[in-house]
């Protein structure tokens, strides 16, 4: 736990506002509480300086009124640092880390497609992972998006949940 505690202490020393918002619950893991976009952008270069040279992936989460983006950094020695960036659902703007970590491109595109995040600085490219005809404004991974209300034939999201479909969907789940 030595390294983990050292890292936490270093972060708190450099960013006093992080005190109490960053912890190491077990060995090899460091988590933060949600931080804003500005705070996150300052934490990233510091993390790199602490030896966390790789980002394994990004987890998008629906935190109720805000969207969460956990960037999981790795230092190659097994310690994972998860920086939890947060942005309000009404305006989920964050900055892409692809300039420094080009391997994150698809992870961040996924945030755009599935959570409706606005990731500034993503290079141009095809969408991922949803198909091309997907209706705009539908973000499947948001908690309020109900898969039962999505009509696959017409590729539209119904205003009201279909009553009849509910019965057959239940049967499908039982199977």
């Amino acid at each position, binding site marked *: 736990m030595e390294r983990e505690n050292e890292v936490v202490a270093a972060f708190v020393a450099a960013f006093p506002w992080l005190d109490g918002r960053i912890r190491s619950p077990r060995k090899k893991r460091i988590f933060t509480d949600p931080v804003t976009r500005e705070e996150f952008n300052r934490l990233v270069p510091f993390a790199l300086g602490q030896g966390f040279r790789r*980002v*394994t992936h990004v987890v998008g989460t629906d935190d109720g009124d805000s969207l969460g983006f956990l960037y999981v950094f790795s230092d190659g020695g097994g310690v994972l640092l*998860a920086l939890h960036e947060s942005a309000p659902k009404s305006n989920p703007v964050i900055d892409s880390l692809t300039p420094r970590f*080009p391997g994150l491109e698809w992870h961040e595109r996924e945030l755009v497609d599935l959570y409706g995040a606005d990731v500034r600085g993503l290079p141009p490219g095809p969408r991922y992972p949803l198909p091309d005809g997907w209706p705009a404004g539908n973000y499947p*991974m948001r*908690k309020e998006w109900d898969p039962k209300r999505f009509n696959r034939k017409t590729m539209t999201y119904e205003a009201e949940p279909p009553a009849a479909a509910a019965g057959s969907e239940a049967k499908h789940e039982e199977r």
Partner: protein
Amino acid sequence: MKNDKLVTIPIGPEHPALDEPASFTVTLDGEKVVDVVVGVGYNHRGLEKACESRTYAQDLFLVERVCGICSHTHSTAYCQGLEELAGVEISRRAKYIRVLVSELERLHSHLLWLGVAGHEIGFDTLFMCTWRDRERVLDVLAEAGGNRVNYGVNAIGGVRRDIDPELETRIRSMTDVLEKEIDYYLELAMTDSVLAARFKGVGVLPRADAEKFGVVGPVARADGIADDVRVVEPYAAYDELKVNQVTDDHCDVFGRTIVRIKELQESLRVIRACLDGMPEGPLKVNVPRRIPKGEVISRTEAPRGENIQYIRSNGTDIPDRIRVRAPSEANWHGMKRMMQGAYLADVPIIVAANDPCYSCTDRAVVVRGAGGRRAMDWEELRAYGVEWYRGRGADISRVEEKLK
């Protein structure tokens, strides 16, 4: 051949080189690849949403099916994560059995890969021989888990199935047979001239790029990056059964081949050590249905590399968020870099050397007909297929009736 005009050919979504749908739109100048646009969609996106409306026990089955070949690593990572959240320590015997099945899985996955690599370069003899050996492993896995893939050995809190002495004998005799074959494959890889001609210098990924793109698994280890999770962050019984990770520094398809074959040899050693040291104990401990609130990141070493899962629980028996990052996801960007400047003939083997695990996708199908574009879902596609065959004298619409 016109060299002033570039040719764009679609490799995928349907192509004999790919076992699952993905599209590589390759732009060629003669035989050299100038550009490639990669298009993939994964199943576990829909899977993650599905997990949020099912209990942890049900999700175990979903997570296991993210991939057919590395299913055990996914379920291991999942169970580990939940056990950590619940603060439960599983028995040593369960850990050993998880390792045993993990290594068996690595065996059959790498053998599969070796065969596919051979097939991609037209070396079908290698393909047939490695898959024959793979059958031996699958037989053992079928006996251990009840199924050749998706073996369902894990349970939340331990394992569901035990290794009895008879199975142990069968595993040992299988490892003895396989050892000779795998030693031969290593010798073949080192000495065969066609393999050398087709693998060396192909799909080169310099170490700096490997780190930049964050590739994992045998692809990274062929660049000398020691990232084997079994060593970096030992899980299950890997803290007791030490694994010697294999690295190489060829940085090309040849290096990846060597790494995988040597990992096969190492897996055999670990399997034997596991059987030798198998402790007694219960298979499963109780884990409460409601998992305490918290978040956890769980890692395992799949045959293809680091498999990392994020699980967030909210105190109920239904997860708040499950994010599965399979190793192949990390390797796609590196793959594009590898293809630049490569020959067309090398594209299939470059794709294959990454050992990508696609998993099929429930996507809409776009049909470009004479009258514009139309999206079909599976029902419509099936109806279309039935009509098509009916017009040619084959009525397959009755098949589903018979199955009911």
